[in-house]
């Protein structure tokens, strides 16, 4: 693996990603200032999830990493999702 030269993320890409992240932050603030109950929470978490994806893919350059690493990272998030779902099922069915 060390033979292959590492991918160098251009400055431009990093700048564009920052601009998107900043815009999404302000979109989140706007959305959460409108009180729409459960929709607000879902929207804020979806945007946070997308921002997290951008940080992982570009700043942490997973987009150019080996398949092994990308699958491992994905599995950690799947594991966390399972823990959340199972805990909430337990919580919902307690008398």
């Amino acid at each position: 693996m060390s033979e292959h030269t590492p991918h160098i993320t251009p400055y431009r890409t990093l700048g564009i990603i920052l601009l998107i992240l900043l815009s999404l932050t302000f979109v989140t603030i706007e959305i959460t200032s409108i009180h729409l109950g459960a929709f607000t929470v879902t929207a804020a978490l979806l945007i946070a999830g997308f921002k997290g994806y951008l940080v992982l893919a570009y700043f942490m350059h997973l987009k150019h990493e080996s398949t092994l690493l990308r699958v491992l990272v994905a599995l950690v998030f799947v594991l966390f999702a399972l823990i959340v779902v199972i805990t909430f099922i337990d919580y919902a069915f307690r008398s």
Partner: protein
Amino acid sequence: MSNHENHTHVHRDDEAQKLGMWLFIFTELLLFGGLFLVYSIFRAQYPENFHESSLELSVTLGVINTVILLVSSMSVAIALTAVQKSNYKLAKLMLLLTVALALAFMVNKYFEWGAKFHHGLYPGSELMQLLDRGHHLYFSLYFFMTGLHALHIIIGVILLLISYVKINKGKVVSDNFMHLENAALYWHLVDLIWIFLFPLLYLIS
């Protein structure tokens, strides 16, 4: 290890170093993930209290700190690109900018926590004991999660400063930059956690 002194082939495995760092990051993600889960459960249990408590936080300070962390995440990524392109001057400048932003974050946090302390709101305080259970839980989680996050900021700053020294000594160079890469990964993790902490604690109410 080679015995030939003049043939200095040092064994180095960048992929393994990176994988090791990622495995550590996984444990960090699950550590904070557990706290997010605790937050979600208690939020579901005490929605009104969580709503009222979150109104106590300054959204302005939260936004400023979010912007600071996002910019610092980019500056550390620029530092890595600069090292890969042998532009060490820019790399060092960007690392110093990142550290300066981290300090600005901590100063903000100091004022934010300071205001809470001033109002008698801190873990174990008399006021905290008198609060409703939901309020108590919210502020305990607030102090614990932002406190643990701030601890990560301090560790991140130390790692970035070590990278800075290594660039200065010529130990982090365009064909050997794993120390900076791993320090940068840690810094991005700090940013990543804040991306979820900020809306959950400050915005969703």
